[in-house]
């Protein structure tokens, strides 16, 4: 008998409710239960969109006779008895009830769209309150706020009741996280190692449980490499009160496999890039990752300061390039800004401190979601100035059409790392197109975490002027994929169709005329629709 327990609606222990889409409402059915694709609830389901007021006022259990609503099924049943129904009708209606799914009334919400609908009225009510409602309920002990009373109650029950503290100082409210942490905690491992054998000088890289071991089996394990210290510690630390034959087996297995294994642990990507950023031994627990990034200068808006090993390579690329073009003074800051803004997430130096702290707040039942943090992360100084009055999506696509193939061509170029080539070439009028001057590091900055695509059309203009991509060295076409096709397919038709499908009016004619091809004037660039 399928049963499902959905926390989103049973925080206070109500009867279990069906979740969206996947459950056949009839308990016994000869038909095989329909399994729906994730994200696509039952296609036969009726999508209900209620206004906020109605949503909050609607009850889940409704009497079919008089339409009176109830919070609980038992109450509904009690009520139905009062209608003095004939025996036949007293039983619950056995006809298949049409599956209903509900969308969130808040337009900007991800659950506003039918494909993200929730199958349960109580669920959507709670979601709406939690996400878009006012948090009226506050925990006394820890001051967390909740919009839904049952959430608040559930939290208060466990807040502060259980705390597990590891010797290393980290605190957990959940036992399983605590146990897992404890098992692997550096501090514990160190203590254990010290307790077991006579004090030995710690191995380099401050990793725990390392003791130099005179035994032959372990000496052939290689000394720790830059990135991953080999951890073949003395067998004693790994020894367990197992029968004697098992112990040598353990050590021999480990020592013989130490070397080859190690390499497979490391990713296969070109190592210089990785090691560059991971050079400080990452063994120290919470600071490892932060350390490698915080060692780089903080990212400022000024373009000239390198912001990490890779960003600084980039900066130096610009700084050192000699040029006769007049735009050199202007260019580097724009690009560096751009790439820094794009590369920024890679080297977040001003983020929340030590990751080990975060689990604690997570462990406690929280639902602060984005409302508390909402605006905090949004203001990144690198990003564009505050958004201006919105353009509709269709107007936007129209703009894309007006920009023309070449603009996007070049912008893409830019983004894909070739830009740095072209940008430096902008500063040098004579350039071998076929040459790639970009070193892998630069490309990886661009392609690093952000996409490297410029957020505006204008910096793409330069490339536009320079002409196109350098993929196939002798390509004379606008085709960035080097496929030898000019502007492939029916670009116009493609984009218009796209725009139409997205919806909205579109002046296809206008788009078409300005789309012409490679030629365009500065007028077009600045034109607003």
């Amino acid at each position, binding site marked *: 008998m399928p049963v499902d*327990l*959905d926390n*989103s609606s049973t925080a206070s222990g109500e009867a279990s409710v069906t*979740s*969206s889409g996947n459950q056949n409402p009839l308990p016994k059915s000869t038909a095989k239960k329909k399994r729906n694709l*994730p994200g696509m609830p039952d296609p036969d389901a009726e999508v209900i969109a209620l206004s906020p007021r109605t949503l909050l006022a609607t009850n889940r259990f409704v009497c079919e006779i008089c339409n009176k609503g109830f919070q609980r099924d038992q109450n509904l049943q009690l009520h139905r008895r009062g209608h003095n129904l004939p025996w036949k009708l007293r039983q619950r209606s056995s006809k298949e009830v049409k599956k209903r799914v509900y969308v969130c009334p808040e337009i900007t919400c*991800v659950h506003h769209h039918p494909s*993200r609908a929730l199958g349960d009225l109580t669920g959507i009510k709670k*979601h709406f309150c939690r996400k878009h409602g006012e948090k009226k309920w506050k925990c006394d002990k820890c001051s967390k706020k909740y919009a839904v009373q049952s959430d608040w109650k559930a939290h208060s029950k466990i807040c502060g009741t259980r705390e597990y503290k590891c010797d290393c100082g980290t605190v957990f409210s*959940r036992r*399983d996280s605590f*146990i897992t942490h404890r*098992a*692997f905690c550096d501090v514990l491992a160190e203590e254990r190692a010290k307790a077991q054998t006579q004090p030995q000088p710690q191995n380099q890289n401050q990793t725990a*449980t390392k003791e130099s071991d005179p035994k032959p089996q372990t000496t052939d394990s290689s000394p720790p490499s830059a990135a*991953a210290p080999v*951890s*073949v510690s003395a067998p004693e630390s790994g020894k*367990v009160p197992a029968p004697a034959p098992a112990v040598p087996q353990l050590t021999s*297995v480990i020592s013989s496999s*130490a*070397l080859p294994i190690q*390499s*497979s*642990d490391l*990713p296969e990507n070109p190592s210089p890039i990785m090691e560059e950023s991971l050079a400080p031994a990452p*063994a120290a627990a919470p600071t*490892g*990752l932060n350390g490698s990034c915080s060692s780089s200068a903080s990212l400022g808006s000024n373009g000239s300061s390198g912001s990490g090993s890779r960003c600084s390579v980039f900066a130096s690329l610009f700084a050192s390039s000699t040029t006769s*073009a007049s735009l050199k003074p202007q260019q580097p800051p724009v690009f560096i800004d751009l790439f820094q803004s794009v590369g920024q997430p890679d080297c*977040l130096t001003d983020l929340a401190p030590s990751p080990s702290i975060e689990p604690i707040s*997570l462990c406690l039942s929280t*639902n602060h979601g984005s409302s508390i943090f909402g605006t*905090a*992360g949004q203001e990144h100084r690198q990003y564009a100035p505050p958004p201006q*009055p919105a353009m509709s999506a269709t107007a*936007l696509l129209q703009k894309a059409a007006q920009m023309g193939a070449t603009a996007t061509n070049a*912008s*893409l170029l830019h*983004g894909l790392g070739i830009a740095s080539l072209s940008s430096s070439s902008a500063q040098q009028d004579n350039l071998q*197109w076929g040459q*790639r001057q970009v070193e892998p590091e630069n*490309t990886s900055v661009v392609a690093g975490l952000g996409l490297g695509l410029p957020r505006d*059309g*204008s910096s793409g203009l330069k490339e536009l002027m320079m002409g196109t*991509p350098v*993929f*196939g060295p*002798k390509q004379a076409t606008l085709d960035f*994929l080097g496929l030898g096709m000019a*502007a*492939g397919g029916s*670009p116009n038709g*493609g*984009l218009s169709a*796209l725009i139409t*499908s997205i919806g909205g009016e579109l002046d296809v004619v206008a788009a078409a005329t300005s789309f012409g091809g*490679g*030629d365009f004037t500065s007028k077009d*660039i600045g034109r607003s629709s």
Partner: protein
Amino acid sequence: MKTEVRGNGGSISLQNPSLFNIPLDPITGALKGCLGSLDGACIEKLLLHCASALENNDVTLAQQVMWVLNNVASTVGDTNQRLTAWFLRALISRASRVCPTSMNFNGGSMFQRRLMTVTELVGYVDLIPWHRFGFCASNGAIFKAVEGYGKVHILDFSITQCMQWPTLIDALAKRPEGPPSLRITVPSCRPQVPPLLNVSKEEVGHRLANFAKFRDVPFEFHVKDDDPCLSNETFSTQFESLLTQLTRSQLDLRYDEALVINCQNWLRYLSDESKGNTTTVRDAFLDVIKGLNPRIIVVVDEDCDLSASSLSSRITTCFNYLWIPFDALETFLPKDSRQRLEYESDIGHKIENIVGFEGFQRTERLESGVKLSQRMNDAGFVSLPFCEDTINEVKSLLDEHASGWGMKREEDMLVLTWKGHNSVFATAWTELED
């Protein structure tokens, strides 16, 4: 102004250099403002258009759509923006592969290539119950299955580097009849996917051993190494070699041991394409483990069907599935949380593989829980239901996380749900008695 390419880069005159002084076009701000509010359906459509444009070699359209998408994308924006960023990246990666020589699109962002410390990984797997759900259900089933056995041997095929075992060791330590002696064997090869550790498997094993000792559980840890010559090969090559070594003798299986096979986020990396008449690697693996006569096999993976060969269907399915972890992270972590960015980046790695690659390079071949169950049945396994204790444990685990997470049962399968949508499934199997 003409925009022809010069073959050898002759001098290029810039007729209007003042253009380059415009730092930001007025469009930009508008773009930023407007596109951020494009909803998921719209973005999905754009992604599909881009993909089909790439497949039809409609270069211009692809670029234009990418340009638009790029203005939506933001790795620190809202859920849709973040998803878009990773999808767009995958599409670009795909496009770049058409011309491999001229572009060095370095696959894998810095985040994805990062190596975590063991302690960091502990926090990582507990960021959301995504992994812990599988751990809890599996460990519960394993615990039940080894009742009465004095020796337990676990073959651990997983990508989470033994994070699952401390809680099992803890549970076994508290057994009324005393703990069994426990052996854990892991293969030396592992798919090249995050999460990556900065220490070797042996080191992880050592720490586990320390912990087991601390809890007085007799413990052994082995890394089943394969041919050192293959150490630079791809995972699939290494694994095919490993398959030949999964024999009773080479694994040193003992007659009085309860053998447990743990497959966590693993089967998806085994190829499900058959070349000619040969069995797929995935099915071959199942045959091999069946031959070892395990007491129980637990299979946990993400409940999503990504084995389709059509790019559009993969994009759609993937987009409509991965919003789930993104949404969950959005609920619990602030926009600039580093842990969140790292976690999302690892999901981005998956997206890049699913959308950006084809053929043998596309290593992420998830199949849904239902399909997996069918496969197990076909291989001669029968499902084992999870007992009430386990289910209660999972329930209380989810209760401790904030609302939104739920669990449901689909026949013998347990499924983790987020806002009602299936995310991870857990199943347990044993051999069909003849």
